[in-house]
């Protein structure tokens, strides 16, 4: 009986190996599918783990293992995938009751949208200049803007924090000459939107430079002959014609702001939603106040990640083209 099973198992395998040796194409195909499944599992598994935690009833979180012991043909073995201990989706409601998580998400949205609008307008002007005008100093200026995008946020944060605290007048660096005393911006959108705009602008400038540079001169000239002003030609002709480029820059800026951690955690000094703390503060407040409510942390993470997942699925063409054109241009 045992030999029969062995033969049955060996039969197809031997046949497959035989045909693979004759046709190596088959091996590459198999390797390809194995690798694809491997990458799919590794990228998506963490989300599955969040889901497992989120639907596990809070009472059963700490008892027993998430890796159940199963009976494998008489031998007990540990199942290699975590499975939920029970099912209770109430965590997705509690998330909003324990902490006003929707307010944190609204804050994040407001910050991301404001930054995106500022970046698109200012980067459009710069993209027009770099993409369509020839003037002395162009290469040096582009290099300077590129350099800004490489500096670490840590190199900017100390003076910015002091300025946004609004305690002392701003002086010209290396002198004591006071310029003016800034308003207190900590815990307001300004203290986050300003650094975000500067940090994420270079990428948008490079993307828009590429796209605006591709619009034929004739179209702009035609608009000018029709009586449009120079600025009008940019906003009424060149920008609409480069809509995919503008969308790319906007999507990437939005995601970058939504995902930002450094300034979001430092410039919002408290984790209260009323003080403009974005999702960083929201998710971390489950960690400090409700240390044992791991299911809520997981549920909040799932809720917080949904907007970007939807954005990636809807706008993946734009993201791919933007990241590759923008980053490789840089």
């Amino acid at each position, binding site marked *: 009986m045992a030999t029969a099973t062995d033969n049955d198992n060996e039969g197809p395998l031997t046949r497959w190996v035989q045909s693979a040796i004759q046709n190596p194409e088959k091996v590459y195909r198999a390797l*390809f599918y194995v690798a694809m499944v491997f990458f799919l599992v590794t990228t998506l598994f963490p989300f599955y783990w969040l889901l497992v935690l989120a639907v596990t009833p809070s009472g059963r979180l700490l008892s027993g293992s998430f890796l159940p012991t199963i009976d494998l043909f008489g031998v007990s073995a540990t199942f290699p995938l975590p499975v939920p201990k029970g099912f209770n989706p109430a965590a997705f409601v509690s998330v909003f009751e324990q902490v006003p998580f929707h307010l944190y998400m609204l804050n994040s949205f407001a910050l991301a949208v404001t930054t995106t609008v500022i970046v698109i307008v200012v980067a459009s002007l710069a993209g027009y200049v770099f993409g369509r005008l020839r003037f002395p100093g162009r290469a040096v200026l582009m290099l300077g803007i590129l350099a800004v995008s490489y*500096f670490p946020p840590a190199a900017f944060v*100390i003076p910015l924090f002091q300025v946004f605290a609004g305690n002392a007048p701003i002086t010209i660096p290396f002198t004591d000459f006071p310029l003016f005393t800034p308003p207190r911006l900590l815990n307001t959108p300004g203290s986050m939107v300003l650094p975000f705009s*500067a940090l994420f602008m270079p990428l948008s400038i490079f993307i828009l430079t590429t796209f605006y540079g591709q619009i034929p001169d004739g179209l702009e000239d035609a608009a000018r002959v029709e009586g449009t002003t120079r600025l009008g030609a940019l906003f009424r002709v060149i920008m609409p014609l480069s809509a995919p480029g503008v969308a790319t820059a906007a999507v990437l800026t939005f995601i970058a702001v*939504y995902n930002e951690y450094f300034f979001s955690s430092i410039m919002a000094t408290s984790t209260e939603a009323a003080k403009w703390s974005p999702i960083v503060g929201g*998710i971390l407040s489950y960690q400090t106040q409700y240390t044992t409510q791991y299911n809520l*942390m997981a549920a909040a993470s799932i809720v*917080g990640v949904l907007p970007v997942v939807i954005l990636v699925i809807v706008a993946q063409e734009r993201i*791919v083209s933007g990241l590759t054109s923008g980053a490789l241009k840089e």
Partner: protein
Amino acid sequence: MSAETGRESRRSGVLVDAMRWMENLSDTQYAYLLLIPVFVLLGVVALYPLLRTFELSLYATSLDLTSRGFVGIDNYVQLFTGGKNRFLPGGTTFLPQNLSLDAMLNSALVVTIIFAVVSVAFETLIGLGQALILDQDFYGRRWIRAAIIIPWAVPIVIQGMIFFLMFNSNVGFATPPLADLGLLAPTNTLNDTASATFIIIVADIWKTSAFMALLILAGLQSIDRGLYDVAKVAGASKWQQFKLITFPLILPTIGVAVLFRSVQAMRIYGIIDTVSSCTVVPSLSCMVVATFNTRVGTSAAIAFVTAAIIGAAVMGLIVWQGEDAI
């Protein structure tokens, strides 16, 4: 004609003057006029803070502007000779005290470099694998690509939460199996420097490989497909095609992507702050944040050293790539 003049006159005179003035500028003047918003924004949020950070790093710590003690490069000297180590949280040192692994992982500079080198190396390998898969034509390619990109778009705080929940001592299921293999400390995993560094590197690889994959994919897709036809006719195997055509042609792209990612990796902060803590895994950015409220001079010196290291890497990129880097 009369309608035209009527509309013109209804506009405010200043606006018309401004428009006319703008129309008559030369290309160069117009270019610099449109760049003013960029200059203002980058000047206020990037250039001024950078200069000011450098200035602060030259002064002793007293914050109040009345008694500023100019100490020159003393903060930097102390940083590199160990005099500043007592201000760093959690017994962290700036440079390693000796060459043991513990001392290395306790040094802010070395931990940052280890993190950058190891994570970027793995991201490049995995990214290359993902890119080779996405370069194929197959049914459902769009969905696979979306799935592979999604980790890149996950907010850092949620990325941190995922790995915190995976390795946390109460609910984390992943610690026991990995501890059995000897990769992680079995208890108090997230407060163990070596284990936490390992977990943070894995978390970064999970999130950023996709970014690497997209950059490499762009390089792959710019390869002339005709080369493969020629190779097939010449009887080259798939492996030979990869070794002799694909790899040499995407090598420059990989080089740019590696340097680009290394620069970003040197900034590591958020994932450390969420998964573990800055006292356990002391990166350079961590040290800046941990000290900037109390020891401004020290903090500014660390920040400027971080910027200088990154600046040197970027200079290397620009010199190496020449004009193409722009």
